[in-house]
């Protein structure tokens, strides 16, 4: 068991750095989680993170990558609706890395 420190508060994470208690997630936590992944959070990153959180709120699942790219393309413009764009933002993959930063459940590794 590991933990991260967010604004003076300790939050537990699992071996791979996913938050154990998703309810603890804050924007500050996202910044700490991103830093641990060497991801420098820009507005473009936040767009995707916020999109993922909204999607999860509405549907209770993290979208599959192809669903994410299609939905992002529709919402944020076709130039952003492709996996190349998303992999540039999150080099280890929008499913794993962006979900971790967004405080969504760890993907089971299904497919």
């Amino acid at each position: 068991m590991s933990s991260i420190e967010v604004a003076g508060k300790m939050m537990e994470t699992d071996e791979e750095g996913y938050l154990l208690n998703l309810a603890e997630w804050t924007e500050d936590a996202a910044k700490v989680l991103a830093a641990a992944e060497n991801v420098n959070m820009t507005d473009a990153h936040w767009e995707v993170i916020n999109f993922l959180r909204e999607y999860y709120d509405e549907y209770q699942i993290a979208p599959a990558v192809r669903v994410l790219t299609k939905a992002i393309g529709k919402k944020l413009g076709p130039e952003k609706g492709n996996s190349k764009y998303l992999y540039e933002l999150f080099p280890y993959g929008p499913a794993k890395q962006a979900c971790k930063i967004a405080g969504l459940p760890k993907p089971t590794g299904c497919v």
Partner: protein
Amino acid sequence: MKFAVLVSEGPYTHQASDTAYNFCKAALDGGHEIGRIFFYHDGVNNATRYTVPPQDDRNIQQRWSKLAQDHQLDMVVCIAAAQRRGIMDEKEAKRQGLDGHNIAPGFHISGLGQLIEAGIEADRLVVFGD
């Protein structure tokens, strides 16, 4: 003919995994091919090597393992269902920070896509469950 088999129940509580085993054995004896046996829902519990039934009862897990070995069967345990129920191979146990693993020989953990793929590639899919 090539079959895919889905086992949706655990051993001992329900007869489903016994029937599935007897079906698979008969299919193989009859010269058919089993493309994949996929264990889902409580069916993942067929794959723990820590089952110790009394000597006068069948050992369901060992029976599956032997069948897999004798016929080079592809026996897949669904990763999402396995994680819920504590069936781990070495890699998953490590990924989850657990101190041991319990998967039996002949079984391996993989994604649900393997079930869909088995259904696509086989001539028939047969489901055993509760």
